[in-house]
C-alpha cells in the first residue's frame, strides 16, 4: 500500500474509494437491520424493501462503480505511446529471465532493469507451468501462460529497487520465486543498455 508507480497509485485510490463506499453501505445495512429488529410487529411495504432497496439501490451503486472500474482499467492498458520501453519476462520453476528490446541479446536473471518515469511494457510468458508477474508497488499482476504472451504496462515514478514476486502457485519453490525490479534514472538506463552496469 505504498504505490510507487502510476498503475499502483490509481489502484490504491480505487481501493480507498471502494473501502469508504463499502463501509458506508455496511453501516447503512446494519442500521436498517437494527431498526427492523426494534420496530414493533406490523405490515410493511414489500415494494420499498424489494424494489427500492433490493433492485434500485444496488443497480445505481454498481453502475457508477462499473463505469469507474472500466475507465481505470482502460487507463492501465498497454496502449501505444512515445517513450514506451519494451522488455520480456520469461518465467520458469523457479526463476525469471528478462530480455530487452533496446539491447538485443542482453539478458538478466532475476533482476529486471527499467528506466524510471517511462512506461514499460513487459511481455510475459513461461516455459513450464503457469506463473504470474507481480511488482506490488508498481502495478497489478498478469499471468504467464504457456504458449501465450501477455503484456503488462508498468512504470516507476522514481529510481529505486522494487520487490517482485510470482503470484500464481507453482509448486515447492513458490515462496522463493521472486525477482527484483531496478528502476534507473535516464543516465543509469543508458549505461545499462550499453552494458556498463550489470
Amino acid at each position: 500500500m505504498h504505490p510507487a508507480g502510476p498503475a499502483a497509485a490509481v489502484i490504491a485510490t480505487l481501493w480507498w474509494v471502494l473501502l469508504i463506499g463499502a463501509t458506508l453501505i455496511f453501516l447503512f445495512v446494519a442500521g436498517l437491520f437494527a431498526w427492523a429488529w426494534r420496530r414493533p410487529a406490523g405490515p410493511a411495504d414489500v415494494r420499498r424493501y424489494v424494489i427500492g432497496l433490493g433492485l434500485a439501490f444496488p443497480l445505481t451503486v454498481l453502475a457508477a462503480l462499473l463505469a469507474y472500474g472500466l475507465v481505470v482499467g482502460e487507463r492501465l492498458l498497454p496502449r501505444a505511446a512515445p517513450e514506451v520501453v519494451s522488455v520480456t519476462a520469461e518465467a520458469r520453476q523457479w526463476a525469471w529471465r528478462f530480455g530487452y528490446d533496446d539491447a538485443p541479446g542482453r539478458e538478466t536473471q532475476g533482476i529486471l532493469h527499467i528506466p524510471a518515469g517511462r512506461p514499460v511494457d513487459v511481455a510475459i510468458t513461461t516455459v513450464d507451468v503457469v506463473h504470474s508477474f507481480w511488482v506490488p508497488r508498481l502495478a497489478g499482476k498478469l499471468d504467464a501462460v504457456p504458449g501465450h504472451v501477455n503484456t503488462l504496462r508498468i512504470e516507476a515514478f522514481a529510481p529505486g529497487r522494487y520487490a517482485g514476486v510470482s503470484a500464481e502457485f507453482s509448486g515447492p519453490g513458490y515462496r522463493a520465486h521472486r525477482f527484483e525490479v531496478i528502476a534507473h534514472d535516464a543516465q543509469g538506463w543508458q549505461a545499462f543498455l550499453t552494458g556498463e552496469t550489470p
Partner: protein
Amino acid sequence: MNALRRHRALTRIWASDPGWKGWFTTVNHTDLGRMFLATAAFFFVVGGILAMLIRAQLATPRSAFLGPEHYNQIFTMHGTIMMFLFAIPFFEGLAVYLLPKLLGTRDLAFPRLTAYGFWCYVFGGAMMIFALLAGIAPDSGWFMYPPLSSTLGAPGINPDFWLIGITFVEISAISAAVEITVTVLRYRAPGMRLSQMPIFAWYALVTAVMILTGFPPLILGSILLELERAFGMPFFQVAAGGDALLWQHLFWLFGHPEVYIIFLPAAGAISTILPVMARTRLMGYGWIVAAAVSLAVLSFGLWVHHMFTTGIPHMGLAFFSAASTLVAVPTAVQIFAWIGTLATGSPRLHLPMLWLLAFFATFVIGGLTGVMVAIVPFDWQVHDTYFIVAHLHYVLVGGFVFPMLAALYYWMPHFTGRRTYFKLGTTAFWLVFTGFHGTFLLLHWAGLLGMRRRIDSFEPGQGWELINLIASVSGFVMAIGFALVLVDVVVNAMVAIRGSRDPWGAGTLEWAMPTPSAAYNFASLPQVSSRDPLYDTPDLPAQLARGEGYLGDPARNRRETLAIDVASAEPRQIVVFPGNTLLPIWMAAITGLFFLGMLLKTYWLVPISAVGVITCALIWVWSLGRRRPEGRLPVGRGLSLATAAEAADPPGWWGSLFLLLADGTFFGALLFGYAFLWTVAPNWPPPAYAEPGPALLLLVALGAGLALAGPRAGHWVVAVGSLLLGAAGIAALFLVPDPSAHAYDATVWVLVGYGLLHHAVCLLMIAVVAARRRAGHSAATTRGAERVSHLWSRYTALTSLVIAAAVGLPGALT
C-alpha cells in the same frame, strides 16, 4: 385401525434392518440424511484440523513447523475437503433428510440411488483421506491448474487422487441432484402447487438444477486431465495443440456456480428459519424465488472473473465484470426481503437467530469485498493474495457455515426429538464468531500489503507478523468454538429432555409428525392448500396420525407414496418403493474398484468392475419390473390411482430427463473445449484432420436414420441403428490412430468414446425392455421403460450426428 396400530404396521413396512446391518442396507431418506450429515461433519473436522495446521505454520515468520511438500498438500486438501467433501455433501444431507418431510411425502424419488450416492461419497472420501494419511495427497492447489497438476509439474500419483477421487465423489452430487429435482417436481403432497412449496424446496430445486449443469464441466475437465496424465492425450499441453487455459475455463465454469450451489441452500435455510424466529411470514416469496433463479442463471455467466489476470482482452473482462457485479442485485433483493421480514415481525433471540445475525454481519462484508474484486483493476492487484483468502472465507463461512449452524440448531429438535437444554451453544457461538472475524478481518490487509496466498512461510519485516499472529490465535479460538458446537450437539442428542412436537411454532409440514420422525414420515399424506399448512390446520398432525389423509391404510403391505402432476399438484400415480437392500453399497464398492483400477493403473480391473457395475444396474432395473398391471387401487379420500409401473411417465423417465440434462451439459462443455482449442490454442490447426470417406458418411446417415426412426419402427430397428453408428465411430478412430499426437486427435477420441459409451447404454436398455416382454411382462407395465429407452436412443442418435459433424467436417472442408 387406531393411530398406534397404524404406526406399528407402517413401521414394520418401512423400518430399516435392526442393528449395525441396517446401516448398510437402509434406503430410507431419514437414515441416509443423518448419515450424510454426520459424514460431512466428519470431513469438516478433518478440513478444520488442516486449517489449524496452516495457521500454526503461519503464526510466526520463517516457521520450521512444515516444509513446502507437506504444506502444499495440506492447503490443497483443506480447500478440496471443505468444498467437495463438506459443503456439497452437507447440503445433500440436509436436503435428503428434510425435503420429503417439508413436501409431505414419505421418501425421495429414488431411495436406492440415495444410498448409492452416499456410499460413492464415503468410498471416494476414504480414497482422499488415505492419500492424506499416506502423504501422497494432491498438492497443486484445490483448483489444480495444469501444467502444474499434469505430468510436467506433478509426475507422482498425487493429482490422480484428486481427479479420480473427486470424480467418484461427484457421482453422489449428480445422483442427489437428480433425486431432488424429481422429488420436488413430482412427490409433493397432493394439492401443494409450486407456488405453495416451502421456500427451502424452491432453493433446493434451483440448487439441484445448478448441480446438474455446473458439475459436468468439472467432471469433463477431470477426465481430460486424467487422460492426459495417464495416456498422454495432450489437451492442456501447448506444444501439441492443447492449452492450459482450457482447464481454467472448464474449472471455473463449474467453480463459480459452485459458490452459489453452496450459498443457495443456506439462503433457503435462512428464508425458512428467519420468519419463524420473527413470528411472521416471509416477505416477498415470489421475489425471493425470482432472485434465486436469477442468481442461478447469472452465476453461469461470470466464471471469467477468476481469470482476470490471464491476459483476456479488457473488453471481454468488462462484460464479465458487469455480470459479476450484477449478481449483487438478486443477493440484495434477498437480504432486504429478509430485513423487511424482520420489520414485519417481532424477532426472538434464540440460538438459530443468533447464528443468522452472524450470517448477516459476515456475509454482507463478504458480499461487499466480492463487489470490490469484481472490479477488474482492483482484482489485478489483489488476485491470489490473502485479500482473496479473506473474501472467500467471509462468503463461504458467512454464507454457508453460519446459516447451516442456524439450521442445525433449528432442526435439532426434529433430528433428536429433544429440547435444546444447555447454554453451551451460546458460548460456542461467541467463540466461533469472534474467532472468525479475528482470523480473517485483518488478513484482508495482509493481502493488500502483498502477502500471496499459498506461500508456506514468510520473511519478517514486511508488516505481516502481527496480523498473522492474531489470525492464528483467533483461528484456534474459532476451532475451540466448533469443538464446543460438536460437544453440544452430541450431549443434546443423548441426554436432553424430550421436547414438544413443534418447538418453534413453525407452519411447515416437517413439524406435523412426531419427532424423532418415524421411518414412514407421515401416517397418511396431507391434502395441502397453502404455504403454511400447520397455521391453517393446527390439528393436522392428529388428523394425519388418524389416517385421514391419503394412503393411510397399510393393507397392501408395501412402501407406497403418491406422485403428483407437476403443475396442478393433482395426485396421479401410486409409487411403490423398494425395500432394504445391499445392492447400492455393492454397486458403489464395485464402482470404487473401477476408479481404483484407473488410479493404480491396474487396467485389467477396469473392464471387470465395469461388468460388475452393469450387472448391479441390471439387477437394480429388473427388480422394478411388474409382470401384470394392477389397475386402479384405492388411495384414501375416495380416490383410486394406478401404480407408477403402469404410467407412461414413471419417475424413472423424469430421472432420465434430468440425468440427460447433466449429460447434455457435459457434451456441450466438450464441444466448447473443442471450439476453444481451435480458436485460442497456439498450435492449431493440427498436422492432419480425419477425412472420412463416403462409405463412413453413409454408415452414419443410415445409422442415425434407423436410430431416429423411433418407437413406431420397433426396438430392433433402433438397435441396428445404434450398432451402425457405433461401428462408424470405431471406424473413425482408425482415421486418427494416435490420440497422443495432437489435441485434435485426442478430442476426436473423446468425442467418439462418448458416443460409443452411449450406444452401449442404449443397447443395454433395449435389451432390458426386450427381455421383459419375453419374460411375459404386459405391454402396460413395460410402456414406461420403453419410453425411457427411446429417450436415451434419441439423445444418443442426435449427439452422434453432432459428433460426426465435429469429427468429419474440418477434414471435408479443408
